[in-house]
């Protein structure tokens, strides 16, 4: 007998033993038969489910966009800013482009104040910082287009890069300026930025900003942001401020200057 015959005999004895085990009536054989039956039912069930599963739609889901509501209100009062303040601004205009991917907001901050009593110079303003959802915005070299944001811990977030542009104006539509430490010699009047505006949209003696946002759901640029602007007025001395408020006819007491002893 060769080694091959031995191998066949061994196989027969093993198979025969297994058949005897399953056909037997012992406790072990009953448990094994139950488990085998369950496994078979599970496989058959999975096979049926697999055949009934519909073919997934391979086309990408359509982004429905976001419904935004303007918070413009005719009863909002335009404040007067002396010295430095961080303020949110009052929404006074909003435009959605025809392709519905770009929104423009106009935020009005304050009245432009008058001439300083101490120096006879006109009030000047500096936009120190812009905060987008409580994060400080760092602009690209043009001082308009956002490059990234920095949170309170110093972490950078580039999600708004190239998607948000902020145009600042100090005094009228034709008084553009960039935030502190930026320079840009080719700034445009507000009516060249804001859709639908003309040279008759003058925004006389107002500080304001135009915020342009390009929709991007993946980068969370799809909501009205919480914006804060840190602004400094060159009129900060108490005497200058009190005199300005007492004499200004637009937002102050309109007291004749001749009635005020300024020496």
């Amino acid at each position: 007998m060769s080694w091959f015959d031995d191998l066949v005999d061994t196989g027969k004895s093993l198979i025969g033993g297994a058949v005897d085990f399953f056909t037997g009536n012992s406790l072990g054989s009953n448990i094994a038969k139950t488990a085998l039956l369950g496994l078979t039912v599970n496989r058959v069930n999975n096979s049926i489910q697999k055949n009934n599963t519909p073919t997934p739609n391979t086309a990408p889901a359509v982004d429905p966009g976001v419904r935004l509501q303007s918070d413009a209100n005719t009863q909002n009062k335009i404040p007067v800013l002396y010295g430095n303040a961080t303020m949110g601004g009052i929404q006074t205009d909003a435009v959605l482009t025809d392709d519905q991917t770009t929104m423009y907001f106009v935020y009005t901050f304050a009245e432009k104040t008058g001439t300083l009593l101490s120096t006879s110079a006109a009030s000047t303003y500096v936009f120190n910082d812009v905060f987008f959802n409580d994060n400080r915005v760092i602009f690209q070299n043009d001082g308009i287009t956002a490059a990234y944001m920095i949170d309170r811990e110093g972490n950078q977030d580039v999600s708004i890069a190239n998607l948000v542009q902020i145009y600042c104006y100090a005094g009228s539509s034709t008084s553009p300026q960039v935030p502190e430490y930026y320079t840009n010699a080719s700034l445009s009047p507000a009516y060249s930025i804001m859709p639908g505006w003309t040279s008759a949209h003058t925004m006389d003696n107002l500080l304001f900003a135009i915020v342009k946002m390009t929709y991007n759901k993946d980068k969370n640029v799809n909501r009205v942001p919480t914006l804060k602007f840190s602004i400094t007025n060159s009129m900060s001395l108490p005497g200058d401020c009190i005199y300005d408020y007492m004499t200004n006819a637009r937002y102050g007491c309109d007291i004749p200057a001749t009635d005020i002893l300024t020496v």
Partner: protein
Amino acid sequence: MSYNLSGYSAIWTAFFVQINVQDYQILRFSNFYKPYTIAGQSYASLGSLMSVGDTVSELRLSDQELTITLSGILSSNINSVLSYKMKGSPVMVRRGLFNANTGVAIVEPIGKFIGLVNNFSLNEEYNVVDKNSSVSVVLTCASIVGLLQTKVAGRRTNPTDEKLYYPNDLSMDRVPNLSSANFNFGAPT
């Protein structure tokens, strides 16, 4: 500022009124017994024909009103009173102290009240014996403090307020329509 008046047996107090009547001229008169000059301007003496209502001396500015009564005006002159724009005319009242014996000023007249004529009324007294009448004009003056307390200034973000100061500016014209507007930002076109 305080003054020692203990050395005077009697003193006079007199009020000097200056009213800048719109579209007319500046009226200056007092209840002093003779014309008096303050800062180069002469104040006519009306004597007892003029009286000033009670005032309260306060350390802080207050919005109290003041009444000035001018009596003895002939009824034939009433038309001229009604013709001029008394309401809104700036009023300044000064008060001075004088030696009752010599008529010399102890304290030169100084500012007591600054305001505007808020209202006026006419009271006619008819003399049945002489068959003529005289009229009293009562000017009610509002303090500049009271006027400032009720003054409304500034702009709201609506086209009416904006055009009050800048009639040609269209910047706020869309605010009324925007106040309930919705935008489908990012929606497919």
